[in-house]
């Protein structure tokens, strides 16, 4: 068996996907938060 056969799979796509999975909803929440927080200075 060659060394490339035994090397572990590249996890980077899974890392990117999993961070997007949690990052996108959190980004939406932060965006809504910033919209509301600006009312302190404009409201």
């Amino acid at each position, binding site marked *: 068996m060659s060394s490339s056969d035994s090397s*572990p799979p590249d*996890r980077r796509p899974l890392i990117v996907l*999993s961070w997007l999975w*949690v990052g996108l909803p959190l980004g939406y*929440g*932060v965006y*809504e938060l910033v919209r509301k927080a600006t009312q*302190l200075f404009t409201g």
Partner: protein
Amino acid sequence: MSPPLAPPGWSRWLVPPAALSVHLSIGQAYAWSVFKPPLESALDLSGTQSALPFQLGIVMLGLSAAFGGTLVERNGPRWAMTIALICFSSGFLISALGAATEQYWLIVFGYGFVGGIGLGIGYISPVSTLIKWFPDRPGMATGIAIMGFGGGALIASPWSARMLDSFGDDPTGISLAFLVHGLTYAVFMSLGVLLVRVPRSEKPAGAAPGADAGPAADAGPGAAAGPGAAAGPAALQGVQVSARNAVRTPQFWCLWVVLCMNVTAGIGILEKAAPMITDFFADTSTPVSVSAAAGFVALLSAANMAGRIGWSSTSDLIGRKNIYRVYLGVGALMYLLISQFGDSSKPLFVVCALVILSFYGGGFATIPAYLKDLFGTYQVGAIHGRLLTAWSLAGVLGPLIVNWIADHQESAGKSGSSLYGLSFLIMIGLLVVGFVANELVRPVAARHHIPAPRESKESTDVQQRQQSA
């Protein structure tokens, strides 16, 4: 269910999103208030009644974290996340049934009791796993997860409000909203169940010299642990104390007091933030409007969340005891500034409140790493669960102090900032008590440690417990 061991090359940077998928979901609890007005009008409930599902949920969070911690340690994070997913989602589904049939007790039982168990088990589920994967940065790792609990409300609050706008706020609309919440959170949390892994080298130090504790601890984002590392950075090293022994130590109770005081002080502001800023500047030339007060509350949420990741990561650099000196000492100073000069300067009031709320979040997020420093990683999740009972008490104590005093001052004819002066002095006192408790924390006495696993028999026993549990 045996803990899911990481395959060779598994990256530790897959574990924080697994934890976040659970914490971002269960953090929805803090957005319960979105459902209150529709429920009150649809089912003819009082404000006190409509708060019941949330209150029972928080009580169940504390109880299930305290009593379920040992089970979580024994069965591993995947089991815990599965239980959290089932309970939290089922809670919504039962509530959907309750709303559809206009049986309010089903909503209290579903969201509060069943969902509350999901909150508690979900809250502690990733903590010990994260600490084992990030022995070099435990504060940052747990900070990411516990920041998610704060972030969950940021997502759920606008999302739930829009859903109720679309579906309507009659029983059918509320039922549909609960149903969509239950199904969506089940799918979202499944990422955590599928992704979470425990490091392979979870063996007592000395049991297998040179075991696969590898360089993965230094691997950056995107870098999978090399095959030599065998996806396991964290051997059990240093002091290890079981959960049963930990609650018998003065250190545990000192930290219990520290957490309770810090949380009480933060909730004191959080609970009445909007009326507080309005009252403080009601008699000035720049009164605060309702929408500006809502903006202030949103800003406090941001500080709470930023404190969880920011201060907790800072604790990795300056030490746990020092960061709690900052939370409690500087926190008391901030309260003093607000009470003395808060009504004369809006920016000063806002900045002090933001700092206090960032310390509130930081206190929550740093405590698991503090526990790990004192008691080791052996049963840190279970110990954390038991410590969260401090949160349950603080959740009652903080609002009680501020509301009770404000009501009394108002009936005594006071108004504006003088409604809160006494509360702030009490908060300063509580923070000083917490500061002293933190100063009393010392290393745990050797008699509480689990036996060093160097002798062959003990080594075998501990390994078997670790690996077959």
